[in-house]
């Protein structure tokens, strides 16, 4: 191979290297959401009610405890699972039972779920149970209009109930 051909070969190979780096650094474009699709996210972290009721210790029982542990109320540590249901336009989109975290099952129950939904106007309804009986004691609903690629977040706080951010 003569010198000119070698240099030409080098130029081609260096060009291919630069081309490969330049192209794959931004292409091909990844279609994450199709046109006309939006995103619904359900996420919260909530400490449910205890599985059992608290009881008051008697005086005799309290006296047996070390002085620093003499607290009148005795509550079980374990919390109930949180059951959450989400409806989109009257149809159930998601139902999940979320166990409490922690080795003693006394922590918060958390969730993060994402759903691809068609853009447009939707009626969202959510309900949540955080008690041992499984009764839905929190409810929320809202009509939202989502542009393509818009995100609506369904969050929950015990103090304010369900919130819909979009």
């Amino acid at each position: 191979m003569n010198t000119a051909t070698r240099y030409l070969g080098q130029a081609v190979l260096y060009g291919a290297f630069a081309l490969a780096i330049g192209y794959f650094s931004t292409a091909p474009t990844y279609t994450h959401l199709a046109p006309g699709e939006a995103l619904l996210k359900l996420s919260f972290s909530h400490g449910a009610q205890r599985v059992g009721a608290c009881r008051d210790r008697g005086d005799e029982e309290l006296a047996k405890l070390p002085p620093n542990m003499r607290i009148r109320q005795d509550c079980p540590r374990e919390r109930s699972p949180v059951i959450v249901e989400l409806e989109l336009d009257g149809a159930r989109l998601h139902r999940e039972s979320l166990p409490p975290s922690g080795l003693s099952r006394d922590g918060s129950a958390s969730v993060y779920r994402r759903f691809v939904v068609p853009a447009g106007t939707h009626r969202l309804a959510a309900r949540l149970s955080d008690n041992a009986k499984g009764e839905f004691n929190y409810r929320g609903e809202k009509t939202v209009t989502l542009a393509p690629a818009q995100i609506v977040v369904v969050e929950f706080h015990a103090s304010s109930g369900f919130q819909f951010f979009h």
Partner: protein
Amino acid sequence: MESNIRTQALKAVRAVEAVFDRAFGARDNPLRHLGALGFYFFWVMAVSGIYLYAFYDTGVTEAYNSVERLTHGQWYLGGVMRSLHRYAADAFVLVMVLHLVKETVNARYRGFRWFSWLTGVPTLWLAYASGIGGYWLVWDEVAQFSATATTEWFDWLPLFGEPLARNFLTPAAVNDRFFSLLSFLHIGIPLLLLLAMWVHIQRVSLADVAPPRRLGWVTLAALAALCVAKPALSAAAANLAIEPAQVALDWFYLFVHPLMYRSSPAIAWGLAFGATLLLAAAPLLPKPKPAPVARVSPPDCNGCGRCVADCPFSAVRLIPHTLKGTYKLQAQVDTALCASCGICAGACPSSTPFRSAGELVSGIDMPQLPIDALRRQLNAGLTQLSGPARTVVVGCDCAADVTSVTGKGVLVLSLPCIGNLPPAFIEYALRRSRQGGGADGVLITGCREGDCAYRFGNEWTEQRVAGEREPHLRLNVPRHRVQIAWANGGEEAALARSLAVFRAALA
């Protein structure tokens, strides 16, 4: 099965390398310096990164705005630096993967190489952690997509009390301190990567950590040209209320996100963990019975240190001489590191066939083919040589099969590595020809330049023959009677052609 697939893959890799050899020459062939190019790109990233860091502001809006100011406000330097940082990172992944493929098809994952192989596995994770974190710093749509996808991926692992993805749930969820943490991580993780790369090369001597100057400059020029032709730009600023629908992904780093969304986090983790486990377990694959390691003969070792200097795997060191009243130092072989290549025996000045001792014992030698046995083979073969252009062909077991060129007037010898050949043997074979019954020429072959199975066997041999490295071939040996023709396994036809041309010249 494994061997068959690997053999076919090796053929393909060598064919590509041969194309690059023709264009670049073996010395400047980037495919023969992939590890060195990895280090080189790391330093390009480090230098450009320090510059970028000086202008980077940590903050939800400041991060994006400061990168935009740098990219457009001083496109001639800041913009180029940013592009260089990005493209060097991409090139780093490219050479890292090619390096991995090349070492895999060469079966360089077992035996004495287990340490280098195993320590390479965490560098893959650290490289990706460094690169993906870098993307987040820009805080554009790509960063938003990557941050959300990564946390959703990690949330599949039962490690976190609260989902990490909640940190990117709404625009209000991200705060300025997040970017301080990110910039700290983007310095800390690359430093860990550098540490891992340093550990990776600890068991090799004279590690190839810098490409040849010409290759380095031209590669940098190619990257710089790319920076000007296609500068790295940010996408639109991140907005956690809008999901990026079309993402201009960097596929070198972010391919795992589409993989996860098109399959599931479990499958993406399965592939990542599975690949990691496979790589980590590769040294446990069945391997050929290891050859005996080098052996030191203290009475014949004067502690000159040439074996120490030439050993490619730092397996030989000098210790106080065990025989009192002789020399101060002697060689000692670390059996765990020894590759059984015999390069040390080729470097030993006592490995000369001209010694009149009945049994030739070298200071350091290979039990499977001692210098004395080599001399006996040579002597026996030389007496059988006849006809014009009597030629001794010395090759190695890792390269082109020298027995393929056996014929009338040709004596072939195969060593564990061509670096195992003491240069005095060349002179020995040629000097006997004057007395009749010897050789008219010696043809040396072995792995192609930059492709020695034991790293330096061919390079040291070339330097010894050229008189540039001790022990060297004496200057009075006529060089036209010595020919070097490197040929890899599978290139026996090329070796035969080189031999024919050499013998024609000798005749």
